[in-house]
């Protein structure tokens, strides 16, 4: 599969590790095969050379000329509203979730473990019923308990998502 995003002037990237890990920045200049000059005035990244190994490219690209100043970078950044746009991407959401997971305490982890058990049980029950239904091919199983289940299931899911 060909790469989706390319190293270009103005390409917005996420710093993967080291200091500034998890912050976004944009490529201002390409120094050589290994390093790029990077700047992120609105995301708290100072202008610095950085190894490509530390960058994860995103789908966003700013319209800036190469080697431009921080001022124009921040202007372009604001214009495209990158901070808000990036926060909506799956990558940002995953990163936020991972950070939340990291901050969980022992008791929180236990609570999630218990919720997961309950959720899986509900799913399994539902699945068993559906399978049984499909097997018999009789459209006449009792209706009332099924309805109650349908209501319950999404509720549990929302609580779990909140926890996560």
């Amino acid at each position, binding site marked *: 599969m060909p790469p989706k995003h390319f190293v270009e002037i103005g390409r917005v990237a996420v710093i993967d590790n080291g200091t500034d890990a998890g912050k976004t920045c944009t490529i201002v200049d390409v120094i050589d095969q290994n390093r790029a000059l990077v700047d992120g005035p609105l995301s708290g990244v100072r202008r610095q050379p950085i190894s490509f190994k530390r960058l994860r490219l995103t789908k966003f690209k700013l319209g800036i000329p190469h080697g431009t100043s921080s001022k124009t970078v921040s202007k372009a950044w604001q214009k495209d509203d990158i901070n808000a746009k990036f926060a909506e991407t799956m990558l940002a959401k995953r990163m936020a979730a991972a950070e939340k997971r*990291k*901050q*969980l*305490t*022992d*008791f929180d982890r*236990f*609570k999630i473990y*218990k919720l997961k058990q309950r959720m899986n049980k509900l799913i399994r029950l539902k699945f068993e019923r559906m399978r049984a239904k499909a097997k018999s091919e009789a459209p006449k199983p009792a209706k009332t308990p099924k309805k109650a289940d349908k209501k319950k299931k999404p509720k549990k899911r929302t609580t779990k998502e909140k926890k996560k």
Partner: protein
Amino acid sequence: MSKAKAKKAPAQATTTPAAAKKEKKLMPKNVRKILTHRRIRPMWAKIKRTAKKKGVAPETLLKKKPKFVVKPISGEKNGSKRLVRVKKERKFYPTEDRPRRVRTGHITFRQHKRHYKQGIEPGRVVIILSGRHKGKRVVVLKTMPSGLLLVTGPMKINSCPLRRMHQMFTIVTSTKLDISGVKVPDHIDDKYFKRKHNSSKKAKSKRGDGGDIFDTKPEAYKPDEQRKKDQIEIDTQVIDVIRKHPEKKLMFSYLGSYFQLRNHMYPHLMKF
């Protein structure tokens, strides 16, 4: 030596009137020399200070106080007077010298300053890492003078009894119960938890007294009634506290569960 000299010297000075103190030149040179001597000076200063407190001239303090008082005795053949000691002599003299306790600057274990991990306090939930209760989540009741933690399961929840635990073998979690209302009886101290060797001692004395040598049957283990009582007393209080917890159902099962590591769980990177 120097003491005696000091006492003598001002005594000579007393012969001159008190005004001589002001006219220092009148004081004999050798006396002045002694009074200003490096060793004696502080003593002389002390005498002067106490004299000032009492409101008397310092010279009066240097006079030897009489050891005896003459008391008239009536009766013919009694010699008419007696010398009576002002300070009575000691009534009791030990026949044998007791060895003096030598005080060294050595700080013993009892005097050591205790340092605890961050977050260790009454009510903190702690994971035990060693011993027969390893993996259990238990509640800290207090810290002991020996530096150990007093801990309870509670026993009803995870069958960890009232016991002491070293802090190095625990993981402190951020979960805390408000056990400020829980009363731990005063008699539960380090001594309370000391191992009792009663049964073995009995067996030994039996042998010595000509008892049955071959009676090597160890006495059956009997749980201490006092401990049972204390356990129940404390556990009911702690369980009451858990009942009041907003997530009491989860809390009960949390304390009843074991801590374990699964895949991708790195305890040094985890928050507890």
